[in-house]
């Protein structure tokens, strides 16, 4: 059964401008797949809906999230102190497909493969757990991450990646430009790409991978109601091959996603 748990804040630190990292102790989280998210239920009673936040990292007894303060909910979160309670769901969504169970192309065995995790801004956090899992599966992992100005999670990614390429919009750190431009210019090659970030970036990466005919997974974001598939609030459009040719169908981002294959997403719809 899925559940809403009450966890304890282990730490909640600002790691960059407006960016916070919170570690939450919570047993009973169950199996966690990279790319899954949790719903955070707020205390402010004027705000009813949960806030979906990607799992950045996890161990037996805790999960770590990294979030940006953009409104009242994340503002509330940023004020939580060590040992305060936080209500959080067990993992939601499918996460990245790296278990070789779904979709023929993927395999559980990443030995000898090179993969690149591509994160943009607040899409960087889920890349940490993903890089770790991919490394555990034997892949050689590269990270290509882009920020507006101030990079974060570079060190964490460094633990699991052989190389961490950083881009910033204004060039204050690393490459000047976005992560996909950097991949092109630095010719960062891989057998597979995994990504989370702004839609424009995901699309650019998807186009890049299509050109090269390399598999690519992207994590989409959509405004959510329930976060668990009950309200049909969060659909995106995907291309589905049917007997009559390709059909545009709708998929719940929270339930069928948030991760989709780049080629599957109907970017223009």
């Amino acid at each position: 059964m899925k559940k809403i748990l009450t966890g304890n804040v282990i730490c909640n630190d600002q790691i960059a401008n407006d960016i916070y990292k919170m570690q939450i102790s919570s047993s009973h989280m169950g199996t966690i797949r990279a790319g899954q998210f949790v719903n955070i239920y707020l205390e402010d009673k004027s705000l009813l809906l949960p806030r979906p936040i990607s799992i950045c990292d996890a161990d037996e007894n805790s999960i770590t999230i990294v979030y940006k303060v953009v409104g009242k909910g994340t503002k509330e979160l940023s004020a939580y102190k060590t040992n305060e309670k936080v209500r959080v769901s067990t993992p939601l969504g499918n996460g990245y497909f790296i278990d070789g169970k779904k979709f023929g192309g993927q395999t559980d065995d990443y030995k000898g493969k090179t993969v690149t995790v591509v994160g943009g801004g607040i899409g960087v956090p889920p890349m940490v757990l993903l890089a770790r899992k991919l490394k555990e599966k034997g892949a050689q992992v590269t990270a290509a991450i882009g920020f507006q100005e101030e990079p974060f999670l570079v060190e964490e990614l460094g633990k699991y990646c052989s190389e961490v390429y950083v881009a910033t919009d204004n060039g204050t750190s690393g490459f000047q430009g976005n992560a996909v431009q950097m991949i092109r210019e630095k010719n960062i090659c891989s057998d597979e790409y995994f990504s989370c970030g702004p839609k424009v970036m995901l699309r650019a990466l998807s186009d890049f991978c299509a050109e090269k005919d390399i598999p690519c997974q992207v994590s989409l974001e959509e405004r959510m109601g329930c976060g668990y598939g009950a309200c049909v609030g969060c659909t995106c459009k995907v291309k589905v091959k049917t007997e009559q040719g390709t059909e545009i169908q709708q998929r719940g981002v929270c339930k069928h996603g948030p991760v989709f294959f780049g080629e599957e997403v109907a970017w223009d719809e």
Partner: protein
Amino acid sequence: MDLSVDFAGVTLKNPVTTASGTFSARESGEFYDINELGAVITKGVASEPWAGNPTPRIAETYGGMLNAVGLQNPGAVAFIEQEISYLKDFDTRIIANVAGRTIEEYCSVVEMLNETDVAMMEINISCPNVKKGGIGFGTDPRMAAEVTKAVKAISRKPIIIKLTPNVTDITEIAKAVEAEGADGVSLINTLLGMKIDTQRKKPVLANIMGGLSGPAVKPVAVRMVYQVRRAVNIPIMGLGGIMTGEDAAEFIMAGADIISVGTAALVNPTAPVDILQELKLYMQEQGFKTIADIRGAFNA
């Protein structure tokens, strides 16, 4: 304590149901045991698949939310195959919520559902009537009566008409559908609302307007249940902002026979069963033995 209720000729083991559009059999069932509920009400289903509205479809408001899902649904054939066939093995009643843009569309869904395990059908007359320029069927007593008459003529299951609160006098609509043989009414559907993002300077919803639900609207819902209870004799399903067992009792005092939990299930996935537990606790504290006792204790 006996929580069972008779509603439009069907016995429910308790008065707690799930509001249409906020319950999905498999997904909600991952959080709690569906068998505990008096009935489940499924998402609006039309004769053919509907794509619904573009995203964003959801906005949060003070103590409430707006949705403009636009009745996205896979059509009755797929719905019966996927949802009803799954739900029929649970020990709970199935109430199917029916959408349509013409009377013919409503009737076609009702005919298909006649053959299934649904216990009743709830007709959502808030849908825009495409033949009348998109005006909601539910805002005009004559149109509401027409839909009711047409579906009653062919339905082999009890028919509940779901009323919209966006009207000057909801009792007029309730009386009109009662006169055409509706077996019950449910209220309220969402209030029409809108939210503007003052940072982005545009409406939050792609559809501009959407339906307001949640605890913010509860006083309007309770008032309407109270008014309708005094206007018609058919049973009432009450909903709109129910978040706790006492909220459920409030609707029953106002005149509801059974209640539905909608937005609360997004705020807290186990809300329907939690509310059922709280209702039992409240009854215990008050020494109420039956649902009828709750209503009986009320004096205005």
